[in-house]
């Protein structure tokens, strides 16, 4: 059974068609990259899958169940987590506090007025575990808003991880990063993929990252599905090259 299946997904904004009749399937444990020129509809696609807005047509199945009408916060509970193109974190709080909020919500504590000692200990353990996974352990008390871009991104991914998802949607995780930071984030993603039975869908512009990480690649252009296949197949695909003509890789 596929983790994510999308059928004839379409999204219209008035006369503008952002996503046009896209169908695809992502298998468990796969690392899928979604690429395409600017304006191809990649982020809109993510927004549809994560429930940011509802589709104009088509359906979305998660673990075989139809989630098309399910609101965003419930999809999180079903095991889906995402990051955003512009890093979305809680800027005035520390890394520890950022992850704590997520961990508390994931543990079902969001409406609780207080926690007992053992719950607090358990929580702390999970937070530290998450920070270690994202290689942020030494930076627990730094305020996220003041950190370097790469660390902020890592923090955001850590927050998504703390939700214990089995599908992770990463929207341009290396955007705006220099070579060193890009390398570190790529290593992080690879580590997560190998370690946790995680299915990952990745939007990326940096082709080095894509070819380094992806099991399969989906190419979008102007809201439509242009091509899909292994990295080798896509690299050889002429239509893809034409679409990217003039676009820096």
């Amino acid at each position, binding site marked *: 059974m596929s983790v994510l299946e999308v059928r004839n997904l379409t999204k219209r904004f008035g006369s503008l068609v952002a996503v046009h009749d896209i169908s695809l399937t992502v298998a468990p444990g796969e690392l899928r990259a979604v690429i395409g020129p600017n304006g191809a509809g990649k982020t809109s696609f993510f927004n549809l899958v994560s429930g940011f807005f509802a589709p104009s047509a088509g359906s979305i199945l998660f673990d075989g169940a139809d989630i098309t009408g399910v609101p965003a916060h419930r999809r999180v509970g079903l095991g889906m987590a995402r990051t955003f193109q512009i890093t979305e974190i809680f800027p005035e*709080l520390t890394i520890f506090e950022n992850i704590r909020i997520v961990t508390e919500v994931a543990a079902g504590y969001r409406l609780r007025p207080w926690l007992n000692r053992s719950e607090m200990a358990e929580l702390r353990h999970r937070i530290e575990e998450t920070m270690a996974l994202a290689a942020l352990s030494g930076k627990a008390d730094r305020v996220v808003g003041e950190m370097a871009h790469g660390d902020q991104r890592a923090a955001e991914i850590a927050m998504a991880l703390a939700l214990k998802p089995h599908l992770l949607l990463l929207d341009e995780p290396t955007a705006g990063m220099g070579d060193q930071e890009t390398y570190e984030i790529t290593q992080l993603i690879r580590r997560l993929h190998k370690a946790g039975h995680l299915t990952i869908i990745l939007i990326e512009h940096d082709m080095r990252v894509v070819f380094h990480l992806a099991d399969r690649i989906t190419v979008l252009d102007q809201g439509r599905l242009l091509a899909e296949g292994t990295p080798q197949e896509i690299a050889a695909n002429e239509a893809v090259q034409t679409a990217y003509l003039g676009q820096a890789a």
Partner: protein
Amino acid sequence: MTADQRKHLAVLAAIWAALLFAPYWMPLFGGYTALGSRVLVLGLGAMSLNFLLGFTGVLSFGHAAWFGLGAYACGLALKHIALSTPLGLLAGTLVGGVAGALLGTLLVRRRGIYFAMVTIAFGQVFYYIAFQWLSLTGGDDGLRGFARQPLHFGLFQIDLLHNDIYFYYFVLFCFAIAVGLMAFILRSPFGRTMIAIRENERRARFLGIPVELHIWIAFALSCFFMAFAGSLYALLNNFADPRMLHYSLSGDFVIMAVMGGMRTFWGPLLGAIVFVVLQDYISSVTVNWMSFIGLLIVLVVLFFPRGFLGMLRPRRAA
């Protein structure tokens, strides 16, 4: 205990010491006890608003409605139901709080500037009702004919009406309970979700927080606190009038919170102190106090938006 925590405790101790001994040091500065009670009550109002505004990031500009509702309900209870101060307080808090919770369901569907507009409009509904429903509320003249009753403890009683100092400590006691409850909630997992929503609503939603529900809960809670403050205000003045429902009072609470520091816990109380004292002083000196208050607001917004305590703390942790 870390140095930070020690400092925190010292500050808290200082604040409570100042509040406990207020009737004794205030006269040294030309103050008087009833002014202190007034500052406490309005400060509680500002803190109740800040619970929503500063800690959840939700802009409500009609919060005086719940304050006024509490005041009227308290007065009406004292006037028509029973001569009991605690009952008046309870009635006021419940009526204002429940009304807020109910209407909150309509309000939380929208956010940002639109939400602010709707809260203002809703606030004015109550003002209008208070104004028009002469037989119940006394209209423009206000609700009169009730007074705070002594507290009965079996063998002895405490006269709240004629003894300003006793009343001050009663208000302080109520204030402490409300403030303690607020602090408790803000430090809980739920309180942290409120802060998450303030920091980044979209992120909060994508963490699995049902944002509308949490905002509604925070809204309802702040209405209960607000109504409690309003009830105390009715007891303070032995009087309730439509101005306690008007959006200009809402604006006053907002400016108190902003002036003192919107994202801090004690800021609004500090803002209330400054605002009440200033207003008291200015209105006794000139008839144009309105211009001065207006000017103060404009200056604070332009040059001092983080407020006193906001400036002292460059960042505020959860």
